[in-house]
């Protein structure tokens, strides 16, 4: 590795006041032709390129990104990583990702700050209790660590939660996945970009796809703001804009793009050392290493690409947060933002071939794609390289909307979508 990061490189560069660090990735002009082009330079797209180069020996590939890498949902999410999904297909998919997360910093030689601080999901009514217990059993049968906690144990694990029985939505229990946690979202994009660049992948920023060239039932290339690029394999990982790209190829997807909001508070001393999610009141909170509370809100129910959501969504989330954590009542929120998430009718992703030869889609991750980044990239790379899905993403094909074999994770995945 030409620029290996280590304690020695840190010391060496300290002598030159950290002014001579090499660039982590190049800024190439696009070639005329690639073996494959990935559309979308977020975490999933860059991971796809990384695994295509690393595991499938496809080096003549490019990632085209209309803005800057990691500037979309990768840089806008609340960085929660967990794999406690109900159904077998989802459990396999998300746990595959979690296993890669556990060794990712070492593999990329880039600190993605993966922190297994645990994720707790709260139950606020009897149905929640039944659902969460059922999910705990399902998780264990799939080899995923899961524990069910009663109210006392919830309080012990996270003492600042208000477990009083007389609040509007009392805490009746919760589940805990200790291997779950958070990671630094930007570092994930940058780490994969650096790794892919080193293996020869061209990462082309500020390059927007304008059209997809088709010849009958196969693709022949893409028209971009930096000219035409010839390729016979296009992997689209465009999150909220997936339908826009699909439309260019004359394809319709079962997606709706909606704004999802998050916000952070002013930084404070460590106060919450885990991630707590609440399905019923739709509020989740963790604390960043800087000390900010990172709070996730819900989606608006209308289609929008405007990257801003409604105020009452934030208000509703903060009401719930304050009832669960009265200690936060005087904290000030510093920043709020929205991302556009592409939601499938069954709240599960699409990692699939399409009816057009050479055109692949990785989309529909909705409100929870960040956690799957490494696994999604790995499996999508497999699908593109072999023109066949891996067994872990076979269930997440586009045809399930025709066959009816849906992977219905609405609510069951421990957070309301």
């Amino acid at each position, binding site marked *: 590795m030409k620029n290996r990061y280590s304690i020695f490189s840190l010391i060496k560069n300290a002598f030159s006041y950290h002014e001579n660090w090499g660039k982590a990735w190049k800024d190439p002009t696009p070639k005329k032709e690639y073996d494959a082009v990935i559309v979308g330079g977020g975490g999933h797209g860059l991971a796809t390129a990384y695994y295509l180069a690393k595991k499938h020996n496809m080096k003549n590939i490019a990632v085209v990104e209309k803005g800057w890498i990691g500037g979309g949902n990768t840089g806008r999410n609340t960085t929660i990583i967990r794999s406690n999904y109900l159904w077998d297909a989802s459990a396999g998919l998300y746990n595959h990702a979690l296993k890669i997360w556990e060794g990712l910093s070492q593999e990329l030689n880039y600190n993605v700050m993966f922190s297994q601080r645990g994720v707790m999901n709260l139950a606020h009514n009897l149905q929640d209790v039944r659902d969460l217990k059922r999910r705990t059993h399902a998780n264990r049968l799939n080899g995923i660590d899961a524990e069910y906690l009663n109210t006392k144990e919830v309080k012990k694990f996270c003492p600042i939660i208000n477990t009083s029985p007389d609040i509007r939505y009392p805490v009746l229990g919760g589940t805990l996945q200790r291997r779950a946690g958070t990671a630094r979202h930007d570092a994930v994009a940058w780490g994969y970009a650096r790794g892919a660049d080193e293996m020869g992948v061209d990462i082309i920023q500020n390059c927007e796809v304008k059209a997809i060239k088709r010849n009958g039932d196969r693709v022949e290339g893409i028209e971009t703001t930096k000219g035409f690029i010839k390729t016979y394999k296009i992997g689209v990982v465009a999150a909220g*804009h997936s*339908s*826009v790209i699909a*439309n260019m190829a004359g394809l*319709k*997807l*079962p*997606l*709706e*793009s909606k704004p999802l909001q998050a916000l952070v508070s002013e930084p404070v001393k460590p106060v919450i050392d885990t991630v707590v999610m609440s399905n019923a009141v739709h509020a989740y909170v963790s604390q960043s290493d800087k000390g900010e509370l990172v709070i996730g809100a819900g989606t*608006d*129910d*209308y*289609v*929008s*690409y*405007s990257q801003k959501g*409604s*105020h*009452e969504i934030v208000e509703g989330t903060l009401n719930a947060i304050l009832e669960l954590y009265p200690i936060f009542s005087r904290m000030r929120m510093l920043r709020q933002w929205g991302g556009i998430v*592409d939601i499938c*009718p069954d709240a599960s992703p699409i990692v699939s071939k399409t009816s057009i030869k050479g055109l692949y889609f990785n989309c529909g991750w909705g409100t929870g794609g960040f956690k799957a980044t490494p696994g999604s990239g790995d499996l999508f790379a497999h699908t593109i390289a072999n023109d066949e899905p891996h067994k872990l993403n076979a269930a997440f094909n586009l045809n399930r*909307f*025709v*066959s*009816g074999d849906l992977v219905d994770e609405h609510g069951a995945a421990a957070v309301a979508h």
Partner: protein
Amino acid sequence: MFLIDCPFCGEREQSEFKAGGEAHIIRPKQPTELSDDEWAEYLFMRKNIKGIQFERWNHIHGCRKWFNVVRDTSNDKIKAVYKIDEKPPTN
């Protein structure tokens, strides 16, 4: 957040309304005749347009009536509002 001009009640905040998704998806006249592909198209496939979209809204915290809206989804600006039995504006 934006205002919607309900054809029955007048201008109200968007939070009083429920979005009903893409408009003018017509329920098949003979559902038993449909192929799986046609069912998928009717049930799940959506245009999900970035730009001018025709959509349905329900004034759930008001008159509770359904109506149609033409909205630019790239900036949430509403171009037109029309009743459920009216033809969509052409311009």
